[in-house]
């Protein structure tokens, strides 16, 4: 495990992102830097509007206008090579999305299209990213059947086999596309549909969905929140992605269901060895689930550390305040004074300066860089940058 952890798969460097609204330019991300290592669960915590979700959307490059990435790099390590994802064009990105990086959304029922059954939607991702595998499986099955079949059926199966082989060789083959449009002949696609369905059911079963054969044909409105979230997770796991981004996947669920989903996520992570970027504002979940934590505030990463280190010795005044404001029985309720600054006109220097009890002159003049204050413990605060 130790060896695997050291390898970085995503490194976000100095990411700037603005929203161009009528009220002005919202500087939503102001030089965000963080890294995700293979096999870990990285938690990203912060208040609403601090840029957690936007960071994850930028990694997939699905920020919608008026949002625009203004600068920085997102380095993506895959098969021993490093790419800057911000330089990828749209077709390349759509191969990355779902295949290498996929995402689980906050509101499970909204993340499923109401007009398609669960099986259709999970199946679509199979078609998008694992079509070759499915065609190969169908061809293998057909070869076996052709040997035993007789007479007319044998001819039909041979025709199907030739079509599938052509499809494997050239996915855009005109003959296959034409055949897919002709009634009756079109039925050769049913074999592929069956295979996809079989795999979908298997996938749902690994996610411990009861009675998956029935759930495959259900529509989103027929599912409970927890079930819907499992289906969304299934959709994200179809292609065995290297990185799974989970954007508050349990926020809208009951506590008991939330616990089930968390256990499931941890199990899947152990079993598949995938890497997870877990976005939440729930520090309890972070403590429970994550290996490392990045704390964000007003568009900045203010602290990144191992989960134990962060909870034991938080360095940044914001992290300290955040941990203190967790309600505990018998303790007076505390909160961080002041409010989050407007991101249209953020204060100069450190964005936390207005609310920080240790604020110094320099905090109003200079933005603190992210420095290593302890082993693998990074913090962006002038209290610590002087000493190092």
């Amino acid at each position, binding site marked *: 495990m130790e060896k695997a952890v050291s390898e970085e798969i995503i490194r976000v460097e100095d990411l700037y992102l603005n929203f161009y609204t009528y009220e002005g330019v919202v500087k939503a991300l102001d030089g965000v830097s963080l890294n995700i290592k293979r096999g870990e669960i990285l938690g990203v915590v912060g208040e609403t509007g601090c840029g957690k979700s936007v960071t994850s959307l930028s990694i*997939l490059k699905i920020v*919608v206008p008026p949002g625009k990435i203004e600068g920085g790099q997102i380095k993506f390590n895959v098969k021993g090579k490093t790419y800057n994802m911000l330089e990828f064009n749209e077709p390349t990105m759509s191969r990355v*999305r779902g295949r290498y990086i996929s995402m689980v*959304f906050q509101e499970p029922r*909204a993340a499923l*299209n109401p007009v398609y059954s669960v099986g259709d939607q999970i199946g*679509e991702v199979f078609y*998008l990213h694992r079509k070759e595998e499915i065609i190969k499986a169908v061809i293998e099955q057909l070869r076996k059947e052709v040997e035993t079949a007789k007479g007319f059926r044998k001819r039909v199966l041979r025709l199907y086999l030739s079509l599938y082989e052509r499809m494997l060789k050239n996915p855009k083959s005109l003959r296959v596309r034409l055949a897919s449009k002709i009634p009756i002949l079109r039925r050769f696609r049913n074999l592929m549909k069956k295979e996809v369905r079989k795999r979908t059911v298997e996938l749902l079963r690994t996610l411990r969905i009861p009675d998956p054969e*029935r759930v495959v044909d259900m529509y989103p409105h027929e599912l409970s929140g927890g079930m819907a979230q499992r289906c969304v997770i299934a959709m994200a796991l179809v292609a065995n992605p290297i990185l799974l981004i989970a954007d508050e996947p349990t926020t809208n669920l009951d506590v008991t269901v939330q616990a089930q989903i968390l256990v499931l996520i941890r199990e899947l992570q152990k079993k598949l060895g995938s890497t997870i970027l877990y976005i939440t504002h729930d520090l309890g979940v972070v403590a429970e689930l994550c290996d490392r934590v990045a704390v964000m505030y007003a568009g900045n990463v203010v602290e990144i550390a191992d989960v134990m280190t962060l909870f034991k010795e938080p360095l940044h005044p914001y992290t300290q305040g955040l941990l203190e404001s967790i309600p505990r029985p018998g303790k007076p309720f505390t909160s961080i004074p002041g409010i989050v600054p407007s991101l249209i006109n953020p204060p100069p220097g450190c964005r936390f300066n207005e609310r920080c009890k240790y604020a110094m002159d320099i905090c109003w003049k200079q933005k603190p860089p992210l420095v290593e204050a302890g082993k693998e413990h990074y913090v962006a605060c002038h209290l610590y940058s002087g000493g190092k």
Partner: protein
Amino acid sequence: MKFKVPERLQPTIREIKFILRRIKDTPLSLFGIAIVMFFVVIAAFAPLLAPPVPGLNPYLIPSDPALGFRVEPSPPSPKHPFGTTLLQRDIYYGCIWGTRWAFQVALEVIIPIVAIGVVLGLIAGYYGGVIDEILMRFTDIILAFPGLILAMCLVTVLTQANWTTIDSVLLSIILIGWPGYTRLIRGETLRVRNEDYIEAARASGASDLRIMFRHILPNTIYSIIIVASLDFGGIVLTTAALSFLGLGAPTGWADWGRLIYDGMGFVSGGLRWWWSWVYPGVFISLFVLGWSLLGDALRDVLDPLYRRK
């Protein structure tokens, strides 16, 4: 042996039952459906109900030479149940074949309009920005003119350019009709575009085309169906209006509007030649009424905001 419904079809059957009950409960919907079915039957069996003269275009109303070439209409008789109009053309024949013609016109117009509207509306709503702006200003230009007057201008121009009057009527109605659908679908696309499941589809690697046609379109299709069925009668009314103004079908064509136009000269006679304008008028009114009622019925059934009330 009892037929057992597979369990996964249960919701579909429940839905169909719901729709049928809903229709049964609203007599107006039933009435609308009955009218439309009535016209469908007439259109389908037109060659049996009013056999055309062999060798002639069936849409041309034959004259009855037995009544001579008098201009004034002849009253209803066993041979001509609805009487005859100008030049002894059989009104019954005109009304029957006019039904088929009405369906043909409405389909030939509604299909291209919906196709254009879907494609342009999806593009405008999904991409937004400059593309949206350009397309919407185009629709604004066309919507700025009163529809019928613009259609009249277009028909006049197109006939001058050697188009047949019928083709130019169809084309001009298509040209004035597409902006409405484009706007409708653009609006629906804007509503659906920002839903989470669209973002989820993008996050799982679906291309723009796939998102537009597989994820957005099915979520907007209900409003298209409703508006299209309401428009079905409207289009026939517009062609009839153009015919009535003398710009549409040529004289003798089995078109309700043209029949009324032919009968217009005899309105001055009071009720003396009533059959020459009453029968085609009744056909047009019923046709439009039927489709509006059907559209309302579809809205009751399909529109999620109305349905569970």
